[in-house]
């Protein structure tokens, strides 16, 4: 079959690879209908995530049709139209029982690598390096889905593939940031990053009852989507000073909840961006935490900061004093999608949550290398490049 393969830093190619097969009784094989690029993939392209290997198949956010199931699969059958969560979770360990699916004890057979980096291992993830299992990704004609009854969900008839696609990762990730960040009725929320995840976090905040939600970015086409589709306010950091603007917007308090949806390759027009860039390129730090720093500084006293953007290692000049002295709660997580996706599909069916606007560029899988180039360089207003295998 054809698949998009990582061949090295910024070197993607469509190659012929072997088709997957059922290896465990809880597996399913899915024929991929749509699979999308994600901002976190750019960290893989750029060589910022360790343990990528030439030959790895990328992609972790997808919809498709079940073509084969293992003997222990009970919830699905051949022919089901399904959306699959990016994180692989067993559904049986203590973390899964707490609905913290991305922390699954059993989904990552390469736990030893992750423990070396972080002390403990999260679950596995499709197409996202050997640190989280080395699982083949979804930018392919077929994909093997371990623990299919846990991470795979039948798409309601009323929901199109284009909408359901983002119930795989972007929508549950964004919802998790708002939910676990503590957004509720009356909250004021600031979201850094107007990509797919940031937009979904903003929409989730509104649906959870937030009174004001503002999304911060520099790209006009994405900020326009936030205003026109999501229904949140926007702030262009190239035009205004973010911290004083947020203070003014919140009556001098600062946002109750700050959600960071940018990750390790943040851009910014501030001196600390240059500092971070130099240190990252010299490999003196692994990530650029520019947006995280600002979120911590912006949050109101006693507020919360949720880190949704992907980070891999260590950062410098972290405002720990602000965290401590302002009494902040700071959290982060990979996505606990299995906790949210069924509810999100219902909201999608009801029209409360629309996502197809994120798929600005849909193209055949054969054009995926070009799609990623457009996505990376934000050409032609690309928010997400989506591929049809």
């Amino acid at each position: 079959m054809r698949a998009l393969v990582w061949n090295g830093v910024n070197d993607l190619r469509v190659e012929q690879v072997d088709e997957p097969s059922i290896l465990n009784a809880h597996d399913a094989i899915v024929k991929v209908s749509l699979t999308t690029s994600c901002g976190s993939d750019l960290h893989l392209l750029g060589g910022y995530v360790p343990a990528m290997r030439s030959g790895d198949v990328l992609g972790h956010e997808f919809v498709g049709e079940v073509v084969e199931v293992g003997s222990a699969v009970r919830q699905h059958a051949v022919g089901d139209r399904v959306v699959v969560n990016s994180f692989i979770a067993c559904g049986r360990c203590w973390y899964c029982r707490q609905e913290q699916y991305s922390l699954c004890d059993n989904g990552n057979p390469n736990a030893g690598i992750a423990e070396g980096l972080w002390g403990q291992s999260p679950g596995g993830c499709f197409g996202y390096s050997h640190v989280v299992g080395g699982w083949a990704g979804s930018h392919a004609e077929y994909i093997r889905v371990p623990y299919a009854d846990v991470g795979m969900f039948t798409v309601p008839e009323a929901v199109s593939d284009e909408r359901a696609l983002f119930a795989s990762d972007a929508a549950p990730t964004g919802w998790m940031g708002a939910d676990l960040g503590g957004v509720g009725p009356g909250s004021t929320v600031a979201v850094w990053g107007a990509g797919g995840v940031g937009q979904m976090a903003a929409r989730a905040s509104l649906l959870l009852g937030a009174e004001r939600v503002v999304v911060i970015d520099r790209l006009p086409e994405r900020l326009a989507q936030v205003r026109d589709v999501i229904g949140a306010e926007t702030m262009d950091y190239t035009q205004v000073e973010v911290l004083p603007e947020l203070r003014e917007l919140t009556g001098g308090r600062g946002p109750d909840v700050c959600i960071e949806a940018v990750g390790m390759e943040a851009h910014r027009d501030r001196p600390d961006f240059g500092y971070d860039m130099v240190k990252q390129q010299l490999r003196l730090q692994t990530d650029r935490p520019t947006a995280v720093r600002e979120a911590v500084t912006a949050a109101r006293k006693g507020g919360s900061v949720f880190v949704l953007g992907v980070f891999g290692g260590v950062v410098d000049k972290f405002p720990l004093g602000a965290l401590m002295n302002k009494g902040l709660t700071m959290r982060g997580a990979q996505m606990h999608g299995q906790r949210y996706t069924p509810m999100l599909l219902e909201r999608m069916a009801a029209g409360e949550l629309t996502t197809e606007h994120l798929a600005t560029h849909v193209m055949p899988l054969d054009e995926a290398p070009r799609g990623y180039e457009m996505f990376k360089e934000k050409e032609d207003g690309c928010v997400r490049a989506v591929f049809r295998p």
Partner: protein
Amino acid sequence: MNKSTLALLGAGAGVAASAAAAAAAVARRHARKQPVADGWKSVTILATPDDVAPGGVVGTPFDRLAEVVETRLLPAPGDRGTELHARVLPGGRAEAVLREQLGADPDDALRRALRELKMRVETGEVLQQLPRPEGRRKHTVAGALVDGAERRAFGAGAL
């Protein structure tokens, strides 16, 4: 070379010598420490003691290691299930048998066994990774490091 340059070089050498001495002292202190928990390693399994050790015998793969590995079960606090603690029996023979049987470092073998048992009890099977769809694997130094890390991963880590 003027006096101030010489002074700077002298100060730099002094700092380097101090750092080296401090590092050596830390290394000596670490070398004197006991092995971690006398070689015990553990996992917490969301299951009852009877599920972990039916009839009092810890299940596969520990049933194959009974002669060389010592185990004990403890209830995990907060309804988290059962803690399984295991270690290679002290003494050279057990380690030698493990190396012969499993071809692995005893610590790695123990980690593999603990992870495998946890998967078996909690999910009913051991999750398989290979074969998987993959493109051309170029032979590079970085690639060899990743391949090696993955081969060792199930038996490696902080466990």
